[in-house]
């Protein structure tokens, strides 16, 4: 009975709401749109911007997550950990337009006007910060799940052999966190790739300058160039599938080794 219920609800809803929209994009591809997009320098600029900013955002997310992992392992009773842990879920619950506005208030003209006319806003650095803001918690969660799998006895032994908590973390814990660090990086990278709201609020949508793939698609829809928007979207889908594939392949590799 329960098996039938799963079949009745899961399969139709999954195919209708997840698979069908992706297929709808692919079926709406047309050669004219493909040609126009592939020869559009702003499209390639947005691809380049997306890859560079997502890469830096993911790296930054992993670096900060490494710090959080230390607190998770050794300083769980500290106020810093409790606040950081609370904020880990914050970017997920917060509307990303609000996140973008918060960043604008923090690093825009009002507070960082000395950096330029717009403060740090509407630059590629702003895009990186916006992407980091929304992707950091995923990297932190990935690292923490790896740290939680570490045998506590290994840490205890290293301490009795003379290591301080920091030494244990960098000499013993992190070297075996390859999978967690990689997962954190890929999750952070993929979340950064898909971010739109925070990026457009804080980084802007300047073609050839701060425009990323997500905002390129939005612009094309806004100006009514649907076939180019569809082509860019399919490009995004392929990129996302590649990331999912890399992640699964890596997991398989770790499971086997």
């Amino acid at each position, binding site marked *: 009975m329960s098996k039938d219920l799963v079949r009745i609800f899961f399969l139709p809803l999954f195919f209708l709401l997840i698979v069908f929209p992706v297929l709808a994009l692919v079926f709406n591809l047309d050669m004219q749109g493909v040609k126009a997009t592939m020869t559009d320098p702003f499209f390639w600029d947005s691809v380049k911007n997306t890859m560079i900013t997502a890469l830096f955002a993911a790296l930054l997310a992993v670096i900060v997550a490494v710090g959080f992992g230390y607190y998770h392992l050794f300083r769980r009773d500290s106020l810093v950990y409790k606040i950081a842990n609370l904020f880990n879920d914050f970017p997920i619950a917060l509307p990303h337009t609000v996140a973008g506005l918060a960043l604008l208030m923090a690093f825009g003209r009002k507070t960082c006007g000395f950096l330029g006319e717009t403060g740090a806003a509407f630059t590629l650095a702003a895009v990186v910060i916006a992407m980091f803001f929304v992707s950091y918690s995923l990297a932190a969660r990935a690292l923490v799940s790896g740290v939680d799998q570490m045998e506590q006895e290994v840490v205890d*032994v290293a301490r009795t*052999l003379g290591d301080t908590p920091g030494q244990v973390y960098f*000499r*013993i814990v992190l070297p075996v966190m390859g999978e967690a660090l990689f997962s954190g990086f890929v999750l952070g990278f993929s979340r950064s790739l898909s971010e739109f709201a925070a990026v457009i609020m804080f980084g802007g949508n300047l073609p050839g300058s701060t425009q990323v793939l997500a905002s390129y698609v939005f612009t094309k829809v806004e100006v009514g160039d649907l076939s180019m928007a569809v082509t860019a979207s399919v490009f995004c889908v392929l990129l996302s599938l590649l990331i999912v594939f890399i992640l699964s392949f890596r997991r398989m590799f770790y499971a086997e080794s």
Partner: protein
Amino acid sequence: MLKAEKITKKFKRQTVLLDACIEVNSEIKALIGINGSGKSTFLKIIAGIVNPDQGSIMLNGADICHLPPEKRNLGYVPQHPALFRHLSIRENVLYGMRNGKGTIEAFERIVEMLDLKDVLDKKPRELSGGYKSRASLARALVPEPGILLMDEPLNGMDIVLREKLLPVFRSVLKELNIPVLYVTHDPKEAELLADSYAIIDNGTVISVNSSEQAFGMIRSSILKKFE
């Protein structure tokens, strides 16, 4: 010499240790207790891994109660070998030397005694359970600690291998003349290794004269729980 006095530890409302005292001189002392008796917690408190609610711990005349584990000058062999899996056995055994603990002479001597020469360049995953336990012991011994704390290091190993390893461990520990506190739930294992015995029951430590006496007291403690 180790002297732990009036160690009390509560986890939330449960009292795990109540005024527990133990003294270990130049001997191998077995602390025998059933599962959940607080023996591992007691060991972790001595090692500095868990903080006691009250009590004092002296090692060779120095109060170590408020020192972090890295400053206590003691060796710890946990239940599982807990070898550092990204390091070779050589690097594992030499690990204490990174922090200035131990000497190459001690390393060579202990490796020889525990018959680890042929596996030094292997990774922990390539070793059998017996060799992993030997390597774990060697790693704790090379820094030449003031006392060695062993928390059922052969737990989960089959009886044949255990009975083969215990005399090896005993002869090594005796030759190095390091005081040892060995925690176990098995009086027979204690008999094969230890010079003196104590039991831990309901968070309190009681010294006993022989492993038979320990066995009798533990058996009556178990029976009492089922009454």
